[in-house]
């Protein structure tokens, strides 16, 4: 039976058909991936270009008339104090969150390597916040941050530290949200760094140890240089994530009844506000384009700085 199938498969017709496909490799790939590419273009690429196009219009969802206004939305952005505050907050937030998340994640990942036998347990534990969605996670933190009944203030009071308005004080809220964002994402980057650390040949570290290199020297001269591609990946990914921060800011700063919070502005919340509360889609589009350019510039800069030099 098996030989019969082989015989059929090796028949001339099939062979020539296979050769044709083999020669037209592109068509073969396209037939398999075409639909996926098409979906990607419709869902991902088209909205970007449509947003760029809309940013040149005074487009209000309800209004029927949508006039072309050229660069006026961008001109207004230059004068918009709220957008400037949001941009400054977003840059500060992203910078602090990236730094905090990656340093803590890398430190934990390195420490976990020294307790290899139990590290999967801790990796799982650290990964739990990653799989928790932003909204419930932020709601939990809102309770923890509550100035009157929150656990954080209670804990601080044990050491005689006065109650803090974590979400009410403009000077504290940014740090409070950085803490939530880092807590949420650290588990993911622990896994990323762990993969990178496992790929460093143990013989390099052993050789360095025999040569008398201290732990810090091994980190400085072996681990960090070899982790460079992983650090680049983690930095790029976290930069993109944190520049687009929205859900924790939205939930933590929402002034629900009795739970007031300082209205911290970030770029995405301004986009949301202009687009979905004021229905000024054209203006929100212009803000989105600025964010896109900013994130792309940051990522390009990171690639330039971290890419391995030949």
């Amino acid at each position, binding site marked *: 039976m098996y030989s019969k199938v082989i015989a059929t498969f090796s028949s001339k017709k099939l062979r020539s058909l296979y050769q044709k496909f083999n020669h037209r490799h592109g068509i073969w790939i396209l037939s398999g991936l075409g639909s996926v590419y098409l979906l990607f273009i419709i869902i991902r690429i088209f909205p970007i270009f449509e947003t760029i196009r809309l940013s040149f219009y005074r487009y209000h969802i309800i209004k029927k008339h949508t006039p072309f206004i050229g660069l006026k939305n961008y001109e207004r952005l230059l004068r918009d104090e709220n957008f400037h505050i949001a941009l400054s907050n977003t840059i500060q937030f992203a910078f602090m969150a990236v730094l905090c998340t990656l340093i803590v994640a890398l430190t934990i990942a390195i420490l976990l390597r020294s307790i290899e036998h139990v590290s999967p347990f801790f990796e799982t534990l650290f990964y739990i916040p990653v799989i928790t969605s932003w909204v419930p996670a932020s709601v939990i933190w809102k309770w923890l941050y509550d100035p009157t009944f929150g656990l954080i203030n209670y804990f601080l009071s044990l050491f005689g530290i006065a*109650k803090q308005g974590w979400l009410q004080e403009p000077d504290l809220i940014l740090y409070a949200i950085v803490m939530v964002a880092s807590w949420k994402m650290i588990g993911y980057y622990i896994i990323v760094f762990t993969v990178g650390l496992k790929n460093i040949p143990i013989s390099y570290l052993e050789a360095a140890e025999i040569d008398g290199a201290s732990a810090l020297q091994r980190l400085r001269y072996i681990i960090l240089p070899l982790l460079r591609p992983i650090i680049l990946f983690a930095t790029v990914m976290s930069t993109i994530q944190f520049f687009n921060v929205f859900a924790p800011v939205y939930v933590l700063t929402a002034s629900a009844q009795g739970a*007031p919070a300082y209205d911290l502005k970030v770029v995405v919340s301004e986009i949301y506000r202009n687009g979905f509360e004021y229905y000024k889609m054209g203006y929100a589009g212009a803000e989105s384009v600025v964010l896109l350019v900013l994130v792309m510039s940051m990522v390009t800069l990171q690639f330039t700085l971290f890419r391995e030099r030949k």
Partner: protein
Amino acid sequence: MIKFSNTIRQLTVSALFPMIIFMLLISQAAAKEKISIWLGYGETLAPFEMVKDKFEKKYPNYEVNILTFSLRDFESKLASSMPTGAGPDLLTLHDFIIPKYLDEGLLEPMPKDLTAIVNDPAKMNPTYTNIIAREGKVYGVPYWTGRSAIFYNLDHFKEAGLTSPPDTIEEFWEYAEKLTKKDANGDIERAGMTMRLTGPSGGTQKFGYLYYQMAGMQMLEPGKKVGTIRVTLKENMDIAVQALLDRINHLHGERKVDDWKLKHDAQGFASGTAAMLLRETWAIAFIKKNGPKIKFGTALMPKGKIRGAFNYIEVLSVSSMSKSKEKVWEFIRMLQEQKALALLLKESGYSPLRLDRDFSAFLKENPLYKAVMEDVAGYSQYIEAPNTAYKEVTTRFGEVLQDAYRDSSLVNNKEGVKSVILKLQKTAEEILDDSGILSE
């Protein structure tokens, strides 16, 4: 001809019969006209459900679908669906979003009988009708209102030796100071008056409550041309400065009556961490539910140059793209019946706006609602001037206010506060101008 056995015939019939019934039911359902209703205030669902049952019995060819959303979701969904004709047939619109739909021709003018009711001052206060009238046509029935009032904690008043709620604005702040309770370190444990210190658009509204009494007008008033708005702060500069100073002076230093770290607003009042609150009708039910042990009273807003209450109203309108306009108006007529309005009041606490309906039995059982339902001579009722940029103006305006509240250098600083007022005026005017609705 092929002959089947009895069993096969019976099996065929028994299989076909439910199929036929099913097909009939589907065709029956498909034949029904559908009326969709979206609600942004889910707590008002009960009368709609009641009328739906009655309506579907009366008009068996119609099926009514009611969906409730959170208020913000409702606004967003309505904004994106209405221009494409995918929105609901019956619209429940709160006053400040009406112009968006009215100006774009998305609302249907009312039939004559309903117009007559709405235009009759014995049946409806003209304050509420004006916002939905354009060039002699009326586009909706004002349905219910939420009205502002003073909420005061009876135990806290007794403890402070106060026997009645404050009558004037001066008394209001004086009482707030007396009612504030501080701990040994001087930190506030109980606010004398819980202010709206965050939540920008809500903060604007609450600041406006006392400004209105002091200035005799709102911060945003209708302009000469329909749909336009003027900002009144500059023309009432001294009053505006005093209104803002009153708040800032009571947020810092010795006269402080509130703190950001306390529970706020209705929840703060319901948890006993505030002695006074300025809020609207809905807060009565909220406090009863969330603070069952709190003994409280309600009173008319404090008096300044005038005395008046802020109202936010809900209007029932019909989409101009609805296929069943007549029947939707009929549904609205049924919602106006005594039974349906009484149920609305009982279940949601919102006061129906029909003056020719009787709610005395409810008021007798629930005297707390008197302050927000009874019309008292000289107590003016006002609503914010609806405009297409309402949300943006009030939000941006509130952001400036929030920052000013935190600035302790503004305590007793008239010049500093004046510059804040000018910034508020400028912020509002720029947005109104950008939206093309700034009054000349």
